[in-house]
């Protein structure tokens, strides 16, 4: 029976069937559309650095700056991205028990909403004032981005990064 089938197969004419190929084409079209969309979800925040190189600064800097400082009060428990306990391997995220102290000018707070309010007030008082972000050891990228985001939201136009590196 097998040999009969094989003989049949070698003698048959091959018919080109369009249906499955069209199905596959559509599947791939949809795949393309999803992939492209995924790529454009990234955004960027400008974090321009001061251009001053060398000691010869002609500006005397009497300008009032809004200094934002970030300190870690409590590092927080490390968790795996899915919420389970972190065992030391792989990527981790911090639990909600992480506490960061934000000092915005003279005010200190651990709440981002307060930071937002303070930044709005300070910007309204002096719309020209620059802001500086000073991140202390232990601060992670996400902490800084949130603060930078709030500063941009409060319409600060001159934001620089200062502080000790490591």
């Amino acid at each position: 029976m097998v040999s009969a089938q094989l003989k049949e197969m070698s003698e048959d004419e091959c018919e080109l069937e369009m249906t499955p190929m069209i199905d596959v084409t559509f599947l791939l079209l949809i795949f393309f559309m999803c992939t492209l969309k995924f790529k454009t979800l990234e955004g960027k925040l400008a974090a321009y650095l001061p251009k001053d190189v060398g000691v010869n600064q002609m500006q005397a800097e009497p300008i009032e700056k809004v200094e934002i400082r970030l300190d870690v009060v409590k590092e927080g428990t490390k968790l795996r991205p899915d919420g389970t306990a972190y065992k030391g391997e792989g990527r981790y995220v911090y639990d909600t028990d992480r506490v960061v102290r934000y000092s915005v000018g003279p005010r200190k707070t651990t709440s981002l909403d307060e930071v937002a309010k303070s930044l709005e007030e300070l910007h309204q008082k002096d719309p020209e004032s620059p802001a500086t972000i000073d991140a202390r050891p232990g601060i992670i990228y996400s902490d800084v981005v949130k603060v930078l985001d709030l500063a941009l939201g409060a319409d600060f136009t001159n934001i620089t990064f200062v502080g000790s590196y490591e």
Partner: protein
Amino acid sequence: MNLAKHDPETEMPMNMTPMIDVVFLLIIFFMIITDMTQQDLEELVLPVAAYAVPDKPDMDEWRPVLNIPYDGRWIVRQEVKYDPEVDDAKPEEERYKQIQLWLNEASLRMKKEHFTTPSHDDDAPTCSCGQTPYPHPQGSGVLIPGEALLIRADESTSFRHIQKVMEFCGIKGIEIWKVQLAVSEPEPDDKPKP
């Protein structure tokens, strides 16, 4: 080819061969294309920011992108330029050699712009913070890199890595002053900012 007869009683043997060929061809095509477009971008989770400018890079243009995942490695186009586990054992001068080399190359490759006098920078369409630069000690005839370095870091990456990169950007010979921090845009159903 028998196109005419579509008698419902005729049995049509399903020929799998061309379909499988096409599927394989397309899988290979996708794999190659996806790999080529994703080389710049490492897989990491970016923090969300509401005031971000959407990232629409010109795919034909070169762009310096530095990825820093949660483990603190600095990766450029799939090459690890600095790995804390390996490089921290080296003496200070050697640790950051690779990254400094790359920053140097990037700086040289960037389109240059003139050092402008203190005023708002109009040729920075993506920046909502118009940096007012200080006068350059060598005068305004100096050309400095005018393109931005994109830093993509994971949510839990220690910020000191980014601070270190910024420090390197500032040194003489590199002088990259436009830095962009990659973030992800919020989902449409998130609470809008007040």
